[in-house]
Each structure stands twice: as C-alpha cells, then as structure tokens.
C-alpha cells in the first residue's frame, strides 16, 4: 500500500513544493538594472570588440562533420554580422533596463544573448584573413564530447540533492569510476564489464557517502571533500603501485568503439552530432530522459522530492525517508561512475592519474546553474562543454587580435558565480538539501 496515493492523491506533500514554483516572483528593481547593465555591456563588447575590431575577411560557417548529406556553407561578412548581433543584445539590454523581462524568460534571454555573442565572436575570429572558416558540426561534436561526463555527473548531483543529500563527491565518484572501468575492462578482457565495474565503483563511493551522511550524519560538504581526497589518493596509489608496474596486465583496456545508429547516423548535422557515439553516450540519453520522467512523473520521484524538501512531512505520510535517500545517493554514485567510464574507456582507454581533473566540481556547478533540474543541468553542462570546445578551437583560427584563451576558460565559472549571486534569476535549492534527518 502506498500511503501517499491511497489517502490523499498527490496533494498533501507536493503542494508545498509546487506552489513555490508556480508563484511568479516580483522581479527586484536592482536585479533588473544589474541584468540590464550586464546585457548592455555584453552588447557593447560585441559591437565594439568583435564588430569594429574585426578584420576584412568573410566568415564561413560549414556544416559538414562527415555526414553523408551535408548542408551548404554559410558565408557572412566579418564586420557587419557582429555589429548587427551586438545591436540585438543592446536592444535586449535596453528593454530589460526600461521595462524588464518576465523572470521566467530569463533562460531564453541568456540563451539569445550568448548565441549572439558567440556567433559574433566566431565571425570576428575568422575575419583575420579571407577564407577563414569553421565547421560548426565539429564544434558541436566536441561540445557533446566534452559535456558528456559533465552531464552524467550533474544528473548524479541533481538526483542526490533532490532527495536531500549534497553530493560534493561527484569528482571522487568519477575518478573511482574511471579507474575501475579501466581496471575491470583489462582484467575481464571486456569493455562491457568495464562499464559495469565503473558504475558499481561509483555506486560504492555513493554508498560510503550515504552511510556517513545519513547514518553518521557527517556534514555532507566536508564528507564530499574528504571522499574526493580519498579517491584521488587511492586511485593515485593504485595507479602507481599496480598499473604503472604492469600496464599490460592492469591498464590496457582498449576503447569503446562508436556504434553508429543505421539511418539516423546519416542525417545532416544531428547524425554526426548525436548518433555516432559509443554506448556510454547512448546510456546518457536514456538517463537524461529517465531522470526527468522519474523525478517529475512517477511516485518515486514525488517521494524523492518530498524527502528533499521536507523530510519530516514526508515521514509523516509514511515515506521511508532514509531508504529513499540511500537508494538515490547510491544510484547517483553509479551515474557519476558511468561518467568516469566515459573518461577512461570511453575516450582514451587507459586510466591516468587524476584524470577527472575537476570535472566533478564543474558538474556540481552545472547542478546549481541548472537550478536542480535534469533539463537545466543538461543545458548548463552543454554550455560549459561548448566553452571548453570553443577554447580549443580559437587556438587554430586566424583571429585579427590576440584572444587569451584562459579568459574564455574562465567564462563558465564566472557565469556560475553570477548565477548563484542571483543576477540571472532566482536559484532555490531543495529546502532540505544537506540536512541530515534523524
């Protein structure tokens, strides 16, 4: 028997949750002004920096990416394009300053602004000499490639926090997953076993997190930091003690081959982008949809969110708070472990020391930037992945001036700071996230 649906159909617990989300908050004057000014600054940079600072060449966007059916190239003038796009951003900024957009339009506003800024920037970057061109599909391909571990890690973060457990240990779970993936795949001689091993290893770290956070009620942020340190130390130790001394036997797993989906893989743009990936990426698609559906359309998701918002109320209607948290945190650990599998056997094969290199922390940022929803987390991860891809691309373009790629690399982090500072809208975590339940 399920007490929630048996007694009071989805009203009692979720009510408190849903009401919060439906209220259209009154937008503060200061936030409106700050956001508007930010947009104006971005617009000015676009017009003055990318528009009038550009070279004379044209900019060509190609849409190849190795698809069987390719779209025609798009060539635009290198100067006019940034100026026009900058004008659009300026107009948005002025409108925001004078009238103010509705708060729920904020993601659209950010999206349009970023798109204008980036396209203008690319046009500028190619205008250094004639014939400058980039392959948009390739750029997006490497975006997906770089975003995959972030998306999986961020989904893990969303699931944990929605049930009330802060998971700062995504990094450690990824690293352990990457290690276990390479080790198990080598020992078993099967990459499939490697993927399973990575998921189980991530889940194991998730279980440790759950035990200490739920049973021993250790502060969850401290716990995450400590688990990350332990994972870094342990995998580093095992890498040197086992893998380096006998690479053949412990660390030569091979790489997961891409599995093109017949038919879909030949479509222009989306084919090479989405349907020529390896099994981890396909699992990721399934997980994105599954998590979004499970969290918001199923009984388990309702219980999870109830436990994350108000555990006492959830317990009152008979939801086993601790069990819901245990299960979610362990499953989340498995997802982060899968992200680790992508890092090792999903891309390069062997494990190397500290190969997650902070991706778990970026995933954590994506959780918050994406406002604790699976959709948002995916969007934020793609954004971060895109900037990482852009950073590598800019190095090889004939730019008319120097672009410090380090500054491009900073953008996602600065954007996250702006996000949590509330400049781009309301960010409200699950109310009981991080609170132990007795």
């Amino acid at each position: 028997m399920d007490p929630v649906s048996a007694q009071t159909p989805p009203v009692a617990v979720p009510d408190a949750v849903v009401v919060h989300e439906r209220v259209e908050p009154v937008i503060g004057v200061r936030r409106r002004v700050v956001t508007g000014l930010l947009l104006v600054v971005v617009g000015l940079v676009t017009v003055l920096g990318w528009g009038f600072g550009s070279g004379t060449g044209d900019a060509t966007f190609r849409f190849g990416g190795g698809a069987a059916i390719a779209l025609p190239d798009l060539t635009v003038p290198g100067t006019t394009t940034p100026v026009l796009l900058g004008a659009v951003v300026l107009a948005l900024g002025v409108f925001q300053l004078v009238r103010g957009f509705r708060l729920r339009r904020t993601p659209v506003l950010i999206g349009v602004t970023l798109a204008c800024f980036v396209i203008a920037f690319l046009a500028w970057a190619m205008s250094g000499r004639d014939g400058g061109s980039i392959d948009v599909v390739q750029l997006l391909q490497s975006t997906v490639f770089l975003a995959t571990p972030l998306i999986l890690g961020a989904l893990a973060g969303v699931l944990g926090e929605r049930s009330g457990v802060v998971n700062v240990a995504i990094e450690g779970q990824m690293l352990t997953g990457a290690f276990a993936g390479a080790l198990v795949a080598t020992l078993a001689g099967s990459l499939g076993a490697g993927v399973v091993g990575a998921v189980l290893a991530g889940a194991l770290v998730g279980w440790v997190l759950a035990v200490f956070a739920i049973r021993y009620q250790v502060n969850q942020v401290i716990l995450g930091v400590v688990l990350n340190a332990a994972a870094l130390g342990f995998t580093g130790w095992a890498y040197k003690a086992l893998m380096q001394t006998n690479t053949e036997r412990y660390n030569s797993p091979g790489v997961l081959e891409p599995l093109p989906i017949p038919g879909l893989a030949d479509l222009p743009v989306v084919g090479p982008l989405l349907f020529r990936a390896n099994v981890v990426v396909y699992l990721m698609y399934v997980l994105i949809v599954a998590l979004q559906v499970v969290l918001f359309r199923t009984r388990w998701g309702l219980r999870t969110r109830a436990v994350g918002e108000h555990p006492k109320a959830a317990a009152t209607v008979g939801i086993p708070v601790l069990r819901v948290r245990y299960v979610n945190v362990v499953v989340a650990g498995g997802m982060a472990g899968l992200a680790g599998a992508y890092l090792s056997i999903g891309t390069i094969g062997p494990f190397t020391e500290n190969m997650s290199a902070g991706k778990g922390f970026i995933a954590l940022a994506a959780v918050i930037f994406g406002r604790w929803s699976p959709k948002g987390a995916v969007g934020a991860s793609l954004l971060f992945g895109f900037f990482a891809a852009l950073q590598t691309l800019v190095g090889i373009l004939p730019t008319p001036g120097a672009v410090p790629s380090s500054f491009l690399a900073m953008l996602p982090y600065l954007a996250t700071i702006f996000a949590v500072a509330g400049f781009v809208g309301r960010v409200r975590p699950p109310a009981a996230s991080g609170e132990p339940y007795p």
Partner: protein
Amino acid sequence: MKRLRWGGTWLVTVFAVVGALVVGAVLIAIGDARTRDAATYFFTYPWDTFTEAGYAVRDAYVALVQGAVFNPNLSGTAALGPISETLVNATPLILTGLAVALSFRVGLFNIGAQGQIIAGAIVAAYVGFTFDLPVGLHLVVALVGGILGGTLWGGIVGWLKARTGAHEVITTIMLNYVAINLLTFLLGLEGFQRPPYGQAISESVAASARLPHLLGSSLRVHLGLLLALAAAVGVWWLFTRSTLGFRLRAVGANPDAARTAGMAVGRLQIAAMAMAGGLAGLAGASQVLGVTGSVTGSVAGTIGFDAITVALLGRNNPYGVIAAGLLFGGMRAGSVQMQSSTGVPVDLVGVLQALVVLFIAAPALVRAVFRLKPGGAKAVGSELAAGWTR
C-alpha cells in the same frame, strides 16, 4: 571526569590516526609485489603472506618516519634535513589551515584556499621581481602584497555572501578555477613569464625579497615558519581576546541571534573571508618567496584542499591547526623518502590524510569500532550550516 576524557576528543583523534594507519598498512601489503607473490600460494604456506606483508608495511612506515623526523644514516647538518622538510611542508599547511579554520568558526566553508593561495602567490611574485627596493623592505612589501592578493580573493566571496547570499562553497570553488586560469594567462604574458618564453614559469624573485633560511642555506626551512606560528597566535588572540573575534564567533554560532544583538552579520562575514583569504595569500607568498622563488601553474599544489583536512583535524583551534599541520607536513615529507626507498607511492599519504579526517568526522563510527564509551567529542564540522540555504 576521567571517563569523559577517555571517550573524548583526544582518544577519538588518536584512534582515527591508528585506524587510518591500519587501512594504509593493508594498502601497502596489497601494493607489495612480494606479498602478492606469496599470496598466490596462500593455502600452502599462509604464514608467508603475512610475514612478507609485515616486512613491507614495516619498511614503508620506517621510511616514512625517517623522511619526516630522524634518519640515523645521516649525520651533521644533514641529520636535521628530515625535520627541515617537515617544517617546510607544514608552513603553508598551517597558514592555509588557519584560513580554513577561521572561516569555519564564522560558519563559512572556505574551499577556496587554493585560489587565495594562487592570488597571493601572483601578487607576491610580481612585487618580488618587478619592484626594486632595499633588502628587508622589499620582503615586507612582497609579503603584504601576497596578503592583499589573498584578501581580495577571499573578500569577493564574503561580499557575494553578504550582499546576495551566494553560497560560499560554490563561489569559492568557481573562484579557484578563475584563479588558475588567471595564472595560466599571466604565465604566458611578457613581463611576467621568464624569458625565453618557452616554459610556463614566472620571472625569478629578486634575492632581496626572498624569505631567509632559518638553519643555513643547505636546509630549506625558512622564515615563513615563524610567520605561520605568529599567525596562529594572532588567530588565537583574535578569537579569545578581541571584540571582533567575539562577534565573529557569535555570527558562527547563530547568525540570527547575532543580527538581533545588533551585529552587522554581513560585514563580519566579509571581514572573516577577507582575513581567511589574507592568511591563504600569505601561504602563497611564503611558498613563492621562501621555497620556489618563482610561480608555476602548480604553485598551490593540493595545499588548499589539504588545508581543509588540517583545519578539521585541528578542530578549528589555532594550536590544533599547528599540530595537524606538523603531522600532515611530516607525512608529506616522509612520503618522498618512502617512495624512493620502498617504492610505496606518495599518494598513500593522501589516503591516510582523508581517512583520518573521515574517522574524526564520524566519532560515532570510531567509538563503535574501538568500543569506546560515549563521550564529549563533537563531530567535526557540526558548527557549519548543513545545507545551501541560510
């Protein structure tokens, strides 16, 4: 009274260290090739496995102590080498541990020591290789510069927290990456990078801005150690003897009550983060001016994260931080010797460090394992806000 002490803080700490060493011993045994060979015929001669494992563990831990404290094979000044290395490693850990502990006491979780170290190191190095000042003054200006760099980096976090409520865990993590990228940018910039511009390393700090060695030029221990100890005394004084410290503790204990009592909670949070950043910035300056003499991308190493474990093990008490810094600094120093003479990777120390803190963070677990009586040991980190909100 006596019973309370037995179940209390000290015993939990001791057993946490013992527990970590036991787990470490298991790892050493697994990583030892001879032990693994002996384990292949475990069911014929089971004792062999244990003796081989025993030898491996003994050798590794003996080397660890020799590298950290005293090595009977060395004589003369070299005999002080291990202690000197321990102190060199402990110096930034103490300073940064204080930075983390200070913010803990005010209820803020500073994961951004890494970025604050980098900010301090950048400014200190820049002052060190561009300014032309007399001996003594140059050093002071460089140190102050480092402190200001860290203060700025930490102060931003406090300001964001006070003005917008942005959670410091997120802003500090993000600012760490901003700092690393800023450093990468500077290391490719003419005027900061060392000619002939092949490597990502800064210009060398002038001799007049270097921290003097304490025990002769052959030993690396430098004046930064005394600065760290002085800083610990300063933090102790701040929290136990000054009005500002009282206010800070009040904010840490209960911000709402502090606000009701008329304290400017926001300003105190900014002050706390700025001071914490200053301490971490001093650590960065001390690394540059005392140890490396220039800045590279790895100037902060993992100090900023190790500092969190130092602060937790030291239970946010300045003198506890000194002790924890010396312990972990010694483990760092000893691990180098351990790796070179027995082949056990230095990373083992990272595992030990994390386990110690994991155990002391869960006193209930340690008590259950070692069958201790329940006592007064509070869980580490219980003074922090649990969630994102507040």
